[in-house]
């Protein structure tokens, strides 16, 4: 017994076989930053995180905080993916009932973007001054000094922080924590003002 898979003959009008159809989302990935305004309701972080996991999107960083509007919180999600995939992530996020607004600002250079890092670095009497100098060059500062360590604090873009951390590694990093990026559009434009919601009824 053998299978008889029929092959569809191309219609006469087409001489050459057509190129294969693109698979959406299979293009080259870039870094994107999604700003997500959400209603501050129970479980909303769980909903966003669960969706990203279930839809197979890998979150690089996630920062969550209140905004100045009642009941509105802001999430900043950084992730990698091609434009179609990230757009799909945004559309899926929009399906969450608690999500008010999603904006991909990763493609613009019209944003300020920073994250904050604390690094606990091994320090000795011999190199402490040197560490402080390096840190100052990177617009960071030392916020705690102990006999065998210092805590360095710095803010900057992801790559600026990466560079500082790479330098500090030479001295020995005991502990490190980063907040993940937060961003804001330059100029007068405001994601919050673009919200069509006046806030909770009173």
């Amino acid at each position, binding site marked *: *017994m053998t*299978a*008889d*898979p*029929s*092959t*569809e003959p*191309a*219609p006469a009008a*087409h001489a050459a*076989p*057509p*190129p*294969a*159809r*693109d*698979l*959406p989302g299979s293009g080259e990935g870039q870094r994107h930053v999604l700003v997500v305004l*959400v*209603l501050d309701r*129970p*479980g909303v972080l*769980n*909903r966003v995180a*669960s*969706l990203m996991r*279930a839809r197979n999107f890998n979150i690089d960083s996630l920062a969550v905080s209140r905004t100045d509007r009642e009941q509105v919180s802001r999430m900043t999600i950084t992730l990698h993916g091609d434009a*179609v995939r990230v*757009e*799909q992530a945004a*559309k*899926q996020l*929009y*399906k*969450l*009932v*608690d*999500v*008010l607004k999603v904006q991909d600002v990763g493609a613009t250079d019209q944003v300020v973007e920073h994250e904050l890092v604390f690094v606990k670095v091994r320090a000795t009497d011999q190199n402490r001054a040197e560490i402080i100098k390096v840190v100052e060059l990177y617009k960071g500062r030392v916020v705690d000094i102990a006999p065998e360590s210092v805590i360095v604090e710095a803010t900057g873009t992801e790559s600026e922080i990466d560079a500082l951390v790479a330098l500090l590694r030479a001295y020995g990093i005991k502990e490190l924590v980063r907040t993940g990026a937060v961003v804001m559009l330059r100029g007068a434009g405001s994601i919050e003002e673009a919200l*069509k*919601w006046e806030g909770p*009824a009173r």
Partner: protein
Amino acid sequence: MTITKGEPAAAPGAVQTAPDATAATRPERRSHVPADGSASAAAVEQARREMLHEGPRQRIKRTRIGADALMEALMLQGADTLFSYPGGVILPIYDILGDYPEIRHVLVRHEQGGGHAADGYARASGKVGVCMGTSGPGATNLVTAIGTAQLDSVPMVALTGNVPAALIGKDAFQEIDITGITLPMTKHNYLVRDADEIPRVVAEAFYLAKTGRPGPVHVDFTKDALQQETAAEHPTLEEVIAGLPGFRPTVEGHPKQLKMAAREIEQAKRPLILAGHGVLIAEAWDELQAFAEKTQIPVAWTLLGIGAIDETHPLAYGYMGMHGWKHVNRAIQSADLLIAIGMRFDDRVTGSVRTYAPYARIIHADVDPAEIGKNVAVEVPIVGDAKRVLEGLARLAHEVDPATRQPYFEQLAEWRRESEGSSWHGSGAWRDGLLSADYVIGRIGELTSHQATMVADVGQNQMWVARYAGFRRPNSHVSSGGLGTMGFALPAAMGAALGNPEAETWAIAGDGGFQMTSQELMTLAVDRIPVKIALLDNKKLGMIRQWQEIIYAGNYHSSHLPGPDFLKLAEAYGIPAFKATTTDEVDATIRAAQAVDGPALIWFEIAEEQNVLPMMPAGKGLSDLIETWGPEE
């Protein structure tokens, strides 16, 4: 207070009564399953009529608790049937259920059955289906049904109880994080800890379930929320909408996109409409037909798009996909334009995307923007409700003279003759004179004048229903498409029969799927729900056996499935049953089942090794169909 069906209520203050009300002063409880013709049946009927139409609402002689607010809210939403199973934490609801005879409570035999029944009710009626279960195992038993509704965009509200708020998080008896479980498989879910929240949350749940792309919404109530006194008012629709600022579905297709689509349609030489479930959900069947006729474009359909167009319509071309008709898949593979309405290019429809419809540009209309561009890239995206989009397209498109499509139509007709004429189906007796499943399905279609609601299970039986029943009426076909849930047919048919009592209702199940939820036979018997069951018994997990035969080199394991004596089984439940093993017994048994006033079962002993062909092996493309297998008949 007067509560009118489907309309927001006045202030519920009137319901409140003196706190000294005791159980003794309650109105007499009424059974929800009274015997036909009995006094209590008449009383239920009378109460229901009074409630829903003219009569004044009987005053409840006790305080109004959260459970009352829930029942009021259900009635305001027009719910008339509740498929449910009791348990400790929802006993406060059962304690007052007798005061709401206008809601028919169907006591199922398993919560999964209740969930599928609510689903079938919704699909057959177009209304929101409601099911309920207790905390812990009652809630987890609902999960499969909720998932089924989620993947098929079925409007459903699933209610569960949970332990008292103070015990949440303590691993209390029958406590499970059910909202955590349903979170990724519902349109939205809630945990209600306060009775005052109940009216708002239930109103939101119904609004979300049925608006935009429908789906299941799950509401979990702590026991104390159901027991607390409350005077909370039911919100108006405007208040509900205002309270959901993140939910604003787009209904109207963008005019610019519609214009682009009209231009594509004008230029196409071999266009094809792909009709999906969205057409049925939007009740857009007339608009679909009008658009197809005006533009003279043939219509193919997905599994859940069956019934979007009358299959006997000259432009109705057929069922597509993995087990679709070869002529339909051929038409897709050679089309220069696909107009996809309310479908989602599921992998069972496209096969390998890389080789899918290689010559076609694609117009894709869906109410859910996330579906567009998700599985295939499209040239013209249109976000909108199928009805509005089809209206818009029909308005913009030019009338097409069928004569100009002559060569195309001739080609399609030839492919169709060839594929429908294949000796691999429709043959009545299959090899060795054994009963052929497609023949049985065809006869049920004929003898119900193609007007019955047919609820399929999953597996080969589902594909035979899709291919051979011949559907002519919207919502006459019900099937678990996305999740492919075995055990769906019997309970879903139970719900479908109550959702659309005018239509004769058939459950078509394989022996495997039937044995997964057959306990609902008792529900059918007790509640006298007149579902006719066609059990297609091949003594196999037929679809598994088929894959093992064709794809796994005949290495059969666990696909042989011994079953009980189904006549005795039905008899034990008090359900009349018939058996057919040969072609000439088929019509008589169908007629006999139809003649039963109430549920009935037919045990069709079909050929054990019949395959559903053609078949597109998983991972292959629509042009790679396996059309024949084994010795020719």
